[in-house]
């Protein structure tokens, strides 16, 4: 309509407003993306040694104990990277740890974990969330079931032969995971549990504590 008397019914006005608003939103998103990328890029091994906290730590975080504790300051739980501990009986060099994590991430995708489980809360809702799977108290009973001495060995055994260790009617299928892939997957899960997820899942550490004290919901 050429003869427009009010700006509110002018197509030109709304077209220009749409362009400006969209442009502004896109520019803001790009700026925020740069900042976020800086904050979620993996840290280095040196950061870990100096005790510098990164939102996503270096792959060598698998050489450390990882906890999940309530932070008064932040009002929710945060991952706590503790003392060094062996992972599959050894300390992994930065190069070895990076290669292991790479293999673990590839395996996670190749076995399509995300279409049953959630990772960082995203995926399917047929099986437990894996965000903090490394610190799940379940691995204690799984160590007894599999007859393994360490958590990582129990996890690797379970991942290779889940059909042998059913806990419920809903079972994980055998995904032909090799021993190397299983080890890498456990490294991937341990690394993921060290990511600062702003307190998700909330209350996970409480569950761990209750379970370790005799448990109210284990069955």
């Amino acid at each position: 309509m050429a003869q427009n008397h009010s700006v509110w019914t002018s197509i030109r006005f709304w077209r220009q407003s749409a362009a400006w608003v969209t442009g502004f939103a896109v520019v803001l998103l790009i700026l925020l993306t740069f900042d976020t990328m800086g904050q979620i890029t993996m840290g280095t091994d040196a950061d870990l040694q100096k005790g510098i906290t990164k939102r996503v730590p270096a792959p060598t975080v698998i050489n450390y104990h990882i906890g999940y504790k309530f932070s008064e300051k932040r009002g929710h739980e945060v991952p706590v990277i503790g003392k060094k501990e062996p992972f599959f009986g050894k300390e992994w060099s930065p190069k070895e740890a990076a290669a292991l994590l790479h293999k673990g991430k590839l395996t996670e995708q190749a076995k399509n974990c995300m279409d049953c489980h959630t990772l960082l809360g995203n995926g399917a809702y047929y099986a437990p969330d894996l965000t903090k799977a490394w610190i799940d108290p379940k691995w204690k009973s799984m160590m007894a079931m599999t007859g393994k001495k360490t958590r990582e060995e129990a996890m690797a055994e379970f991942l290779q032969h889940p059909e042998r260790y059913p806990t419920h009617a809903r079972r994980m299928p055998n995904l032909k995971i090799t021993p190397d892939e299983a080890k890498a997957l456990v490294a991937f899960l341990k690394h993921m549990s060290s990511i600062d997820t702003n307190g998700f899942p909330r209350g996970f550490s409480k569950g761990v504590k209750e379970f370790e004290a005799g448990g109210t919901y284990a069955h």
Partner: protein
Amino acid sequence: MLTSIKNHNLQYETQKLGMMYFRVAIILFGAQLLMGLIAAIQFMYPSFLYGIFDFSVARMVHINALVVWMLYAMIGSVYYMIPDETGLEAVGIKLGKLAFWVLTLAITIVVLVFIFIQIGPGDDSTIWLINEGREYLEAPRWADYGIVVVVLIFYYNVFFTFLKGRRTGVMTVMVANLLALAGLYLAGMFFTDNISVDQYWWWWVIHLWVEATWEVFVGTLAAYALIKIIGAKREIVEMWLWIEVLMLFGSGILGLGHHYFWIGTPEYWWEIGALFSALEPVPLVAMFVHVLYDWGKEQGAHGEKPAIKNGPAMAWIVTNAFGNFLGAGIWGFFHTLPQVNIYTHGTQFTAAHGHLAFFGAYATILIGMMYLGIQGAYGIDRMKATFKSKMAIFLITFGVLGMAVALTIAGYEQVLVERAELGGGWDAFFTAQNLVWMKQAMGWRTVMGVVTFIGFIYLVWDLLTIGKEESENNQ
């Protein structure tokens, strides 16, 4: 089977190509529902097809068939509207037809590999040839590149026809939005060891599709359809379309932040995500009001007969206006604030929202476009809804709404028991899954899934026959 739909009243090859896309879309829609039924049964009886066709496979094909049928129906809709809007046959239509066959062949191979090979070893070969293992973007990398080539051809068809022909406001929005929609796919085409970075870009594709560019696409289709079906005034429809673009992009682009609460990204996304995603329902209300306003106006004052040229298409578009608001707007807003989302993230709440939103916002209007296509293909002046049309829309809408309600109840229970009470983890998860409330909800979900599937059978039956029946009635 679907070749029984005749094309001979369509003057443009471009529109015939659109109909070809619609045919594949409806087949994939059926595949999506079948896979959903398998997955729903597995929730109730976990040993069903265990080790043969596991939940992960059914679920993967379920969501990929969904995305692909919608993309097919979207591409089909664009081809269908090009001649109407620009007044021309699409530039390079022969190449466009070739691209259709290439894409359909590629999709067939991808689906067969998903179904029969399912998974591969943990190395690059699996990512490239079998399965990328990233929800919604499971298509292997070779297919990603194939899709890019086909989409480039499609965009060439659309863009050069737009340049040559009439440049309506509807087509302007379509052309600009399609560029963003297609370009975003590239954000999902790389591998990284860093799961946080992975999910950051993964959401660029998923969110900026379904909560930004796809929504604008729907607004554009609704504008075109309202002009076509009820003869709505182009000036008013196009003005509304620009307002919708403003509000949809204004809220949806930064609404992306609501996916960045818990994936390792900084806390400032809480505020940004909460604010902008809370605004996302606003344009959906506007779209609803707009459709009803135009409809009411065209119903005619002074006792004139309503001038709806395509009954079933109009019914689906009104369902879209309401379903988009309800499924995307209300069900999305339920759990978009971080204070709520920390408990609901990754539960059946998300599944409830996903079912109702994909249906309400997208399935509805795309089915409406198929009815428009049938009307054109048979050259029917005024196409009325048949008994089958009514059964289809009633059963599908009732079924999906029922599934969403059942999943909401399941999600509510899961949130309270697994998350709030027990704090998450393996035993917390199964405690919640094994409670009778969850089991009942999953039972009702399956029942409602069957209702939806019966509605789908009516829909296909109607699409196959309404053209012939109505063209005979009109004579």
